């Protein structure tokens, strides 16, 4: 029998805060976390902006010796995981840790570690490549590290599907609890690829905005003057828990995960299906999985990347999936403020979606001054947050390779 799954803890590490309340208030207020890149010299690269976490000091969170052995993405993952754990109020000594899954995501993994060791290889030769290169770089290591930190011994792995990676991690965690393979899961994603190599790669694909003089206006999903996405970084982690257990222990329940939908485009290595068919099927699969009707959806947190090729198909997908009801849905894009966190995007954005369902507020899509008409004529919550009842919401993530994941959040009324 399928079991119900609720969210009882959330943690975020982002440009807009390291506390969920602070993060969500900043989203509601339309604050932008985009700025000029300071971490490396951008003079030879066309892109000079990102959602870069400034003044990060690993030693604030880790022993110096420990920090040296953790790639930045794993550090972000552990910090967000710690917040989510604390937030859940779970007493780990009172539960069976063999029933605690850890399913995290990263689109890329330890890019900084990869680069620094490759530099050593070229400059000093293979004998100097660190024995920690591989275990620091592999994208699943965050899941391993989290399990070791709290001695969590249930299902443990990571998912990789580019920008939809954490959508798949959370969706898979939901299924894992739903079908009884675990009672708890810590799930989400972490990404840290604001490096010269990664930015150069994305820039040369023409995927990134070059609005370098106005960083805070660069990410403008659904606006006709959008010119690409803005790289972001950080981590979001959630604690999912089997419903009966959460109720029994008197947990604070943010919301219920009520359905998931996964699909593939089978079209192009980077561009989404121009007709949005895969995205449409993912959203409708989540609606069907939850046993509700398309008309029940109040809010959609889009993938909304601000790329010329992404926003139109997603809009078309919403129209095809929801028909006339599409115009009544409060739609937004978190990327307008924090940029695109790749494999962490799904988790960080789902945290905002869950807060929307919990608080009946919808954060804005900032920089939406001139919607890309005639296609983009939905209610994208332009520039100002709104209060409205949100009983059911979807959060979308789509990834290079044609991967689509949609997570359905249901209001919890205890």
């Amino acid at each position, binding site marked *: 029998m399928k079991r119900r799954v609720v969210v009882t803890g959330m943690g975020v590490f982002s440009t807009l805060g390291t506390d969920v309340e602070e993060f969500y208030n900043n989203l509601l207020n339309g604050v932008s976390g985009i700025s000029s890149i300071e971490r490396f010299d951008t003079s030879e690269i066309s892109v000079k902006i990102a959602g870069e976490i400034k003044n990060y000091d690993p030693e604030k969170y880790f*022993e*110096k*010796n*420990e920090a040296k052995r953790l790639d930045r993405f794993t550090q972000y993952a552990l910090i967000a995981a710690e917040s989510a754990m604390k937030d859940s109020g779970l007493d780990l000594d009172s539960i069976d840790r063999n029933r605690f899954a850890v399913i995290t995501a990263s689109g890329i993994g330890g890019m900084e570690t990869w680069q620094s060791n490759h530099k050593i290889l070229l400059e000093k030769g293979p*004998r*100097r490549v*660190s*024995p*920690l290169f591989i*275990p620091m770089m592999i994208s699943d290591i965050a899941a391993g590290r989290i399990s070791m930190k709290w001695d969590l011994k249930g299902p443990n792995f990571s998912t990789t599907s580019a920008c939809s990676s954490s959508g798949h991690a959370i969706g898979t965690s939901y299924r894992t609890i739903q079908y009884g393979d675990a009672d708890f899961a810590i799930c989400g994603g972490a990404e840290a690829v604001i490096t010269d190599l990664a930015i150069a790669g994305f820039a040369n694909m023409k995927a990134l905005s070059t609005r370098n003089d106005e960083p805070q206006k660069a990410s403008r999903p659904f606006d006709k003057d959008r010119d690409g996405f803005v790289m972001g970084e950080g981590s979001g982690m959630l604690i999912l828990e089997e419903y009966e257990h959460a109720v029994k222990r008197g947990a604070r329940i943010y919301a219920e995960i009520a359905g998931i939908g996964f699909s593939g485009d089978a079209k192009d290595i980077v561009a989404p299906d121009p007709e949005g068919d895969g995205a449409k099927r993912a959203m409708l699969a989540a609606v069907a999985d939850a046993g509700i009707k398309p008309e029940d959806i109040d809010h959609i947190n889009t993938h909304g990347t601000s790329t010329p090729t992404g926003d139109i198909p997603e809009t078309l997908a919403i129209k095809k999936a929801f028909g006339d009801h599409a115009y009544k849905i409060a739609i937004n894009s978190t990327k307008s403020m924090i940029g695109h966190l790749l494999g962490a995007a799904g988790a960080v954005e789902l945290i905002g979606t869950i807060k929307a369902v919990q608080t009946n507020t919808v954060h804005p899509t900032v920089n939406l001054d001139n919607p890309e008409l005639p296609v983009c004529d939905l209610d994208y919550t332009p520039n100002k947050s709104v209060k409205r009842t949100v009983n059911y919401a979807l959060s979308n993530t789509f990834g290079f390779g044609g991967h689509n994941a949609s997570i359905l959040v249901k209001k919890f009324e205890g």
Partner: protein
Amino acid sequence: MSVEQRVKEIIMDELGVDEAAVVPGASFINDLGADSLATVELVMKFEDEFDIKIEEEDAEKITTVGSAVDFIKKQLGE
């Protein structure tokens, strides 16, 4: 700085241990909290610091603070 002192500082930095723990008889793995990868890293640091080459069969024998100091001194002809 003496070889002993330089070795000690590398170990303190790599393993994050206090100076008092870094005694000649201390085993990297059993006493100083190193894992197998950390011992490989330590040997690399010794190679860099003293500009010497430590072959794998020698590296396997460097398991304590004292054995590291002795090996390095021998390599340096001290």
